[in-house]
C-alpha cells in the first residue's frame, strides 16, 4: 500500500509566513508538497468556521501561521487567532479530532528555514497520526 499522504491546509499571514514561504522557495529549500497554502491578510481573519470546515471536509490537519506576538500588522490579529485556536482545541478533540490536527505557529518574514522545517515536522507528525476520521466519509 502506498504511504499515506496527508493534506494539510495552512492559513498563513500575508505579511510574515507567506513571505517566509516565498523565501523558502527562492532559497530552494525543499519541503513536502502536502500543504495547501491559503494566504490571509492576517491570522486574525481566520474564522473558526474555516478550520472546522476544512477538518470536516477531510483535511488531515490545519496549520495557522502568523506574525510573532508584537509584530502583527493589525496589532492584535495574532492574539485573536491564538484564543480561537485555544477554543477550537477544547471543542474538536471532544468529537475525536486529535488536538494536534490543529497547529498554530509564528513564522516571521525572514524565517524561510523555519517555514520549511515547520512544514516537514507537521507532515511527519500527521503521517504518524494517520488519516483524519472524515476522509472519504459522508459527514452530515
Amino acid at each position, binding site marked *: 500500500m502506498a504511504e499515506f499522504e496527508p493534506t494539510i491546509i495552512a492559513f498563513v499571514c500575508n505579511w510574515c509566513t507567506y513571505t517566509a514561504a516565498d523565501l523558502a522557495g527562492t532559497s530552494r529549500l525543499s519541503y513536502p508538497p502536502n500543504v495547501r497554502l491559503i494566504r490571509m491578510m492576517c491570522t486574525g481573519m481566520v474564522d473558526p468556521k474555516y478550520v472546522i470546515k476544512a477538518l470536516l471536509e477531510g483535511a488531515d490537519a490545519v496549520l495557522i501561521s502568523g506574525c510573532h*506576538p508584537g509584530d502583527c500588522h493589525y496589532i492584535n490579529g495574532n492574539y485573536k487567532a491564538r484564543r480561537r485556536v*485555544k477554543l477550537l482545541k477544547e*471543542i474538536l478533540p*471532544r*468529537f*475525536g479530532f486529535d488536538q494536534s490536527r490543529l497547529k498554530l505557529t*509564528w513564522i516571521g518574514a525572514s524565517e524561510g528555514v523555519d517555514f520549511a522545517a515547520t512544514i516537514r515536522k507537521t507532515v511527519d507528525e500527521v503521517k504518524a497520526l494517520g488519516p483524519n476520521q472524515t476522509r472519504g466519509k459522508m459527514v*452530515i
Partner: protein
Amino acid sequence: MAKTAKIEVKEQGLIATMQGFCKTLLEKGGIDALLVAQHLPMKNVVMPTLVTDPTKLNGVDPLAPVFPINAAKVVSKLTRKPLAGKVAAVLRPCEIRAFIELVKLKQGSTEDVLLVGIDCLGAYSNVHYPRFAGQNGTEATLRFYQNIRAGKGTACQDFDLSPACKACEHPIPENADLLIGLVGVDINDQVLVQANSPAGEALLGAMGLMGTKEPPEGRKKAIATLVAERAAYRDQMYVETSEATADLEKLTAYLANCVNCYNCRVACPVCYCKECVFVTDVFDHEPSQYLRWAKRKGILKMPTDTVFYHITRLAHMSTACIGCGQCSNACPNNIPVMEIFRTIASYTQKAFDYEAGRSLEEEPPLSVFREKEFSELTGGKD
C-alpha cells in the same frame, strides 16, 4: 448587607401571595412597568408580559413550572437602548444569567432595569407543561410546589422536569437586586424576600418590607442539598454525552435527525449574532456546487452542513452558554441539544477560567486578547 424580609403566605396561598407582591412592586416600587410571566387569558399558556396597569396582573404566576422562552431575550429588547422609564423584571436564575451575558455583549443594559430573581425548582418542557397543567394554570403551579413540599418530587405521569433544569446547579438567583427565596422556606407559611443591592434595598423600603429577619435556619442546608443533587445529575450527563459524541461517527448519529431548522439558535438567549451566518448567502450555494460535492464522495446528505452548523455554534457561543435548555425545548426533533452544548461549554468556559452569567465584570473570553498567554499552543514560542 443583604436585607431580608418575609411575606406571609398563610390562608391566601402561594399564588395570591406572589400576585400581591407583584402588585405592590408595580404600585410602590417606583417603576413604570413590571415584566413578569402570566397565564394568558385566552389559553393556559405562560408568557412574559410587560404590565403598567396594576389591575392587569390577574394571571401573574412567575412560579409556574414552565418558561416557553428565556426571557433574557425580552429584557434585552427592553434595554438595548434607553427605555425612558424603569422596569422591574421577575426572572428565573438562568434568565438573569443569560441577561448578564447579553449586557456584556452590549445587547442590553442594567441601567433601566431592576432584576427580581426567584429561586427556581425547575420547569417542564413546552411539550410536557400543558400535559401537566391542563386548563387550570395556577392550580397546577400550586400542585407542583405542594408535591415538592410533601417530598413527592417533580415527576408526573411519564415525564419530569427538563434535563436542563435537573442539571442546573444555579437554582438560586445570582446578580438579582431582589431575591424571592423558596428553597428551605416553608412556602405554606412565608416566602423570603432578600435585597442584594442598594437598589434592591430601596425597593424593599418602598414596598414597606423592611424586615431584618435572617433567612430561615434550614435554607443554607436545603440549598446545598439541591445543588449537590443537580451537580450529580449534571456530571452524569457530561459523562453520557461525551460518550455519545466521542467521535464523528457518534456525533453524526447524535445529530442525524437534525433538519437544519435552526430553531435551537433562535431559542438560545445567548446566540448573539444579529444575522446568523448559516442563513446568509455564504450558504446560498450554486446548485452545481452540490453536484460537485456529491461527486466527491458519491453521496451528499441534504440539507448539508448540519454538523458544521452545530460545531460552529459551539465555537461561537459555548463560552456564553448558561445551560437554560431552550435549545432542546425548541427542537422539533427531540435532539438533546442542551446536553451537548453544556458538555462542551464545561470545557470551553474552564479553558478561559470563565463562567457564563457569573459576573458583569468578567470579560467574555473571545473579546479580550493579551500579548502573553497560552504560549503552550505555539510550543512555547512567543
